[in-house]
C-alpha cells in the first residue's frame, strides 16, 4: 500500500475529510452473446490520497488518465473494484445504495456539460429543488423559498424559477448546476471539469463564484480539470494522474517550482502561456507517442515508454509514491529518477521503449529530424 502522505507529517485525522486508500476501478470489456469478459480497462489502478477540510485539491491529467473515474469512485457513483474511501471518518467504500443515501448530502458533484447535466424537460426551480425533494427536506412554498435563495447565492435571477434550462446561457446553466450541488450544504464538492465547456470570460465568472462559495460555506473541493492554468488558479494542492495512477502530489507552489516527475515536467511545459515573453523563453518538452492503452498498461512505471529519463529499472519496478530527497514532506512523487531542479528535459528523448514500440519511435524521430532538422541545426 502506498500512502500519499509521509507518516511523519501525516495531518491530524480530524483535518482529513476524505481518505482514499489504494482505490482501484476496473471496467470489464465484454463481447459476444454471452457477454464474456475479454479484458479490463484499468481506469483507476491503486490511488491513495487525502483531502483535508477546507482545501481545494486539484486533479490534473490527460484524457483517459482516470481522473473522472476516481471522482466518481469517491462520490460512490461507481462501486470500487478494490480499496477504501473514508469520508468524514466513515468508510463508505462498501455501503449499499440505501445506506449511502443519507451520506450523499455531504458529497456533491458539479458536472462538465452545462447542457447535459440539466434535464431539458424540467423547470429550473424543480431541478434545483431536487435535493430537497429526494431527501424529503422541505416542500411547497418552503422549498421554493430555499431554491430562490440558492439561485440568488449563485448569481441567478430568482424570478427565473419557472424557466427551462434551454432558456439560459452556458454560464448560467453552470450556475444552476452549482446551486443544485450547494442545496444540501455539502462538506465536499467534486467539480469535474466545471469550466472547460465555457468561454474564457464566462469561465472566470464561474471560477470566482466557486471561490466565493468556498469562503462563504467552508467547502472542500476536489477540482478536476485538464486545463492546468485553471487548476493552478483554484487549488491548494495538485495531484497529477497518468494512466490510472497518481504520479505526483504537491502544493501548487511546490509543484510549479519543483516538479519532480518527468511527466509533470512535460505537462507543465506544454501548457500554453498567455504571455509572449514567457512563451518565447520556455522550452517545451515534447513527449513522444501517445498514452498507452489502459487495457494493457506498460510494466513497471507506466510512463517509461515515453519518459526521457527512463532506465531499465523503470520497466520492471513500479515506483512508489514517496517523498523525494530535498522535498517537503507533503510533496510526493512516483519516480525512480526524479527530475532535479534546473535539469532540462526538452532536448532529451525517450530512453527506453517497449520492444514493439521501439522501432516505431526511432523511425519517427529520425524522420521528423531528417525532414525538418537539418536546416535548424546548421
Amino acid at each position, binding site marked *: 500500500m502506498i500512502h500519499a502522505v509521509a507518516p511523519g507529517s501525516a495531518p491530524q485525522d480530524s483535518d482529513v475529510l476524505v481518505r482514499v486508500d489504494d482505490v482501484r476501478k476496473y471496467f470489464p470489456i465484454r463481447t459476444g452473446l454471452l457477454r464474456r469478459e475479454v479484458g479490463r480497462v484499468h481506469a483507476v489502478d491503486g490511488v491513495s490520497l487525502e483531502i483535508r477540510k477546507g482545501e481545494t485539491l486539484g486533479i490534473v491529467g*490527460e*484524457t483517459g488518465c482516470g481522473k473522472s473515474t476516481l471522482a466518481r469512485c469517491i462520490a460512490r457513483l461507481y462501486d470500487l473494484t478494490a480499496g477504501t474511501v473514508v469520508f468524514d471518518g466513515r468508510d463508505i467504500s462498501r455501503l449499499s445504495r440505501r445506506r449511502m443515501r443519507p451520506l450523499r448530502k455531504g458529497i456533491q458533484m458539479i458536472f462538465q456539460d452545462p447542457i447535459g447535466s440539466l434535464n431539458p424537460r424540467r423547470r429550473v426551480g424543480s431541478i434545483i429543488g431536487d435535493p430537497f425533494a429526494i431527501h424529503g427536506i422541505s416542500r411547497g412554498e418552503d422549498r421554493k423559498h430555499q431554491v430562490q435563495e440558492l439561485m440568488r447565492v449563485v448569481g441567478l435571477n430568482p424570478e427565473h424559477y419557472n424557466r427551462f434550462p434551454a432558456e439560459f*446561457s452556458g*454560464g448560467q446553466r453552470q450556475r444552476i448546476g452549482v446551486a443544485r450541488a450547494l442545496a444540501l450544504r455539502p462538506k465536499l464538492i467534486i467539480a469535474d471539469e466545471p469550466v472547460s465547456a465555457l*468561454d*474564457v*470570460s*464566462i*469561465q*472566470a*465568472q464561474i*471560477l*470566482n463564484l466557486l*471561490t466565493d462559495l468556498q469562503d462563504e460555506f467552508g467547502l472542500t473541493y476536489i477540482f478536476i480539470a*485538464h486545463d*492546468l*492554468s*485553471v487548476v*493552478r*488558479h*483554484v*487549488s*491548494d494542492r495538485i495531484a497529477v494522474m497518468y494512466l490510472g495512477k497518481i504520479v505526483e502530489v504537491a502544493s*501548487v*507552489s511546490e509543484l510549479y517550482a519543483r516538479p519532480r516527475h518527468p511527466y509533470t515536467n*512535460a*505537462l507543465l*511545459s*506544454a*501548457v*500554453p*502561456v*498567455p*504571455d*509572449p*515573453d*514567457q*512563451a518565447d523563453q520556455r522550452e*517545451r*518538452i*515534447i*513527449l513522444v*507517442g*501517445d*498514452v498507452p492503452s489502459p487495457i494493457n498498461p506498460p510494466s513497471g512505471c507506466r510512463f517509461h515508454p515515453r519518459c526521457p529519463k527512463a532506465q531499465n529499472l523503470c520497466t520492471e519496478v513500479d515506483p512508489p509514491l514517496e517523498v523525494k530527497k530535498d522535498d517537503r514532506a507533503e510533496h510526493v512523487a512516483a519516480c525512480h529518477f526524479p527530475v532535479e531542479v534546473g535539469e532540462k528535459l526538452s532536448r532529451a528523448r525517450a530512453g527506453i521503449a517497449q520492444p514493439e*514500440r521501439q*522501432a*516505431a*519511435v526511432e*523511425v*519517427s524521430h529520425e*524522420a*521528423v529530424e531528417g*525532414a*525538418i532538422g537539418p*536546416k*535548424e541545426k546548421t
Partner: protein
Amino acid sequence: MNRLEVKDLTVTFPTADGLVQAVRGVSFELEAGKTLGIVGESGSGKSVTMQTIIGLTRGARVSGQALFEGQDLLAMKSDDLRHVRGAEISMIFQDPLSSLHPYYRVGWQIVEMIRAHQEVSARAARLRAVELLRLVGIPQPERRVDDFPHQFSGGMRQRAMIAMALANNPKLLIADEPTTALDVTVQAQIIDLMQSLQKELGTTIIMVTHDLGVVADIADKVIVMYAGRAVEEADRRTLFYRAHHPYTRGLMGSLPGKGGTRERLNPIAGQPPSLIRIPSGCPFHPRCPFVMDRCLREEPPLLDVGTEEGHQSACWLPPDLVGFDRQVDARRWTAAEADRTGRARVLAKGRALTAEPAS
C-alpha cells in the same frame, strides 16, 4: 508581399428568427510566411470568416473581397476555387473526423488529395503520402498508411489531417481550433510541428482559436474579434502587453494562472450579444466598464492607437490609453466618466462591480 488581403468581408445568414450577422466588415492583411492569430469567443465570427474565405459557408450572403495573391477568392467560380483550395490553401479543423472519411484508408485519402491537384502516378503519390505521415510524426508510416482513421488515436488523426493539408505544399494553411479537442501534451506536439513546418516550408498560417496561450506562442500578428468585427489588431507583444480595447483587456483579466493562486479573476460581465440583435453603437457597450454616451450611438471604426505600427483598435477611448496597469485603467475610467450622462452612467454603475480592479 501580402499573401492574403481581406477587405470589408460581411457574412449574414438568413434564419427563421431573423438575419444572423456573423461577420460585419472584417479587413486584414497577412504577409507571406507569417502567422496570424484570430481570437474570440464562440459567436465572434472568427470561424465563419475563415470558412467564407475558402468558400465553405453554405446558405450565407457574402460581400467584400478576399484577395489571395491578387485573386479574389469570393468572386471565383467554384471549380477554380476548388483547385485553389487543397492545392494552395488548406484547412485544418477542430474535429479531424469531419475531414477524414471513415470508410477509406488514411493513405488513400492523402493520395487522392495529391492526385486531385497534381499529375503524378499513384505510386509516386503513395510514396509522398508515406513521407508526409513521417513528416508529421506518425510512427511506422509505411504500415500505418493503410490504416483506417478509427485505428488512429486523436492526436494521430489530427496529425494525419495536417499531413493531408500539407499534401500539396499549400502556401496558406488555415487552422480552425486545431488543438482544442486535444490534450496539452498532444497540443504541444501539434504546435511544435506547425512551427517547424512553417520554418521549413515557409507556409503562411492563420490560427483561429479561443486560447490566448496558443496565440501568445505562435502568432506574429493577432486579431481579436467580437460580435462579427475585428475590435483590435496588433502584433503579439503589443496585444499582450499594451492592448487598447476594453474587450481585449477583459479577456486577459479573465485568464487564470496569470494572477496567481486563488486571486479573484476579473471576468467580463454579462454574455456575448445575440448576432441577430446586435447592440447599437459599439457592440461591446453593454458589457464594457468604460462605456460612454458616444458608445451607445456610434460604432467605433478600427483606428490606429498606441505607439506601435499596425496597432489598431475599435474603441472611442483616447488612442494613447494602452496597457493593463492600474494607472491606465484609472485614466480610462476618468476619460469615460467625462462623457457619461444618463444611460451610460447607469450601465457603467452596474459594471463597476466587476471591473474595478484598477482602483
